[in-house]
């Protein structure tokens, strides 16, 4: 049943710009570095002996920001598909459990974000090659910098989906998204337990995997909380 719901959800997001946004996120992050390196490549290459590492760091400085805002946009978009003509009542009156409806929305979003991460990896690698940063390509680092932020941001995805689906006024989840974004931008100053710090992969122990594990764990937790709340609400 969940497979049917998923294909139905993927059908519904057609022509809405979901895929475009999924592409624009990672593209924008790398494009900013294209501009950055395009304008002052020589200066940037002087900053470090590890050109690949420095480049990945530059890319990664924008990844969490794009991720947090991207999540806010896509979740709100997702909710507005049903909100626009109040199709929730039609969807929930189908013989499907509300849990599965919520799960399918979450899964579609997670798939889109995962796809973004794949694109981010490809674009990062490709532009790195264009820049000719040396033959010692840090493949593992590229993979980590592409997928870890996404996994660490799962709690944010769960939270934003919850707020979007229960808000009539989509200004609320977007504002929550902006506040989260400000927190992520200020990640450096935040204590380790704040979920908006996690996509930056920073922590006191300097161990990115910690953020990934926390992200997946707390993400599941927040997901379940949101889902239970969603199933208990009356459909207007």
């Amino acid at each position, binding site marked *: 049943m969940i497979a049917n719901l998923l294909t139905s959800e993927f059908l519904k997001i057609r022509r809405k710009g979901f895929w475009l946004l999924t592409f624009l996120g990672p593209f924008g992050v790398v494009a900013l570095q294209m501009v950055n390196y395009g*304008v002052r490549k020589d200066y940037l290459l002087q900053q470090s002996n590890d050109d690949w590492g420095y480049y990945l760091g530059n890319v990664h400085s924008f990844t969490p920001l794009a991720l947090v805002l991207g999540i806010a946009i896509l979740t709100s978009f997702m909710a507005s598909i049903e909100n626009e003509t109040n199709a929730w009542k039609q969807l929930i009156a189908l013989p499907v459990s509300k849990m599965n409806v919520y799960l399918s929305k979450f899964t579609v979003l997670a798939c889109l974000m995962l796809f973004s991460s794949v694109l981010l990896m490809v674009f990062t690698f490709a532009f790195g090659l264009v820049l000719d940063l040396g033959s010692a390509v840090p493949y593992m680092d590229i993979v980590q910098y592409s997928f870890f932020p996404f996994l660490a941001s799962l709690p944010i995805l769960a939270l934003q989906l919850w707020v979007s689906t229960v808000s009539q006024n989509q200004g609320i989840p977007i*504002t929550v998204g902006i506040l989260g974004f400000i927190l992520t931008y200020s990640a450096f100053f935040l204590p380790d337990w704040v979920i908006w710090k996690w996509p930056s992969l920073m922590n006191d122990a300097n161990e990115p995997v910690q953020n990934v594990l926390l992200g997946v764990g707390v993400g599941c937790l927040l997901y379940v909380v949101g889902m239970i709340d969603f199933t208990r609400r009356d459909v207007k």
Partner: protein
Amino acid sequence: MLGLFQSEWFKLRKSKVLPILLSGPLVGFFVGFALRYEANELQGQEWYLTILYMNLTYALLFLPLITGVLAGVICRYEHQSGGWKQLLALPVSRGKVFVIKYMLVLLLVLLIQLLYLGSILAVGAINGISEPFPTEVVWKSILGGWVATFPLVALQLWMSILFKSFAAPFAVNVILTLPSILVINSERFGPYYPWAQPFSMMYIGGNEGDVFFIPWEQLLTVVGGSFVLFFLGGFLYFQRKAV
């Protein structure tokens, strides 16, 4: 015209805009307290540094993004259940509707700026800053930031009228705002990027001789020019929009 404004204000009051306005001072508090210790390290410049840091995050990212949300809120209830056709079937010109909506968003942005000013004062009081408050500089910065959003609000209003969903105009806003982080570092491009102007015009470290910390020419050409462009674009689009 006044009746139209009152009607808009009434519709707005009923639509949960207060939590959105309060997010402004919330960001102020957050940045203000996160930087508490660093500000205390430098005697004699406490206000200056506190405001400088607070403005950095607030003006660079928060302010441009929230203008889009406010413009979206103004249009949300028109997109829902055919509000546009009802509104435009009233004996009012479309031009007036656009101008009123635009002024209303500006008013909201001004409110958020004032609330943010309140958060500056509160942060100072709680952190026990004893130096005299640099009133003139701060007012310049608050009003300057407001003026800098004029073109941004115009574009966001345009986008919010164009798109039915809330997220789409916001996506446009994000795409245009994020590059500011890089742009402000560039002396060559920084002055020309409209989305970086709220930061420049609230940057109290700028040239104090200028009215809003940026040269008059820049204010007129970049802020003024982009304002004319976006405002006319939205205005003309709205005239022709099929409802």
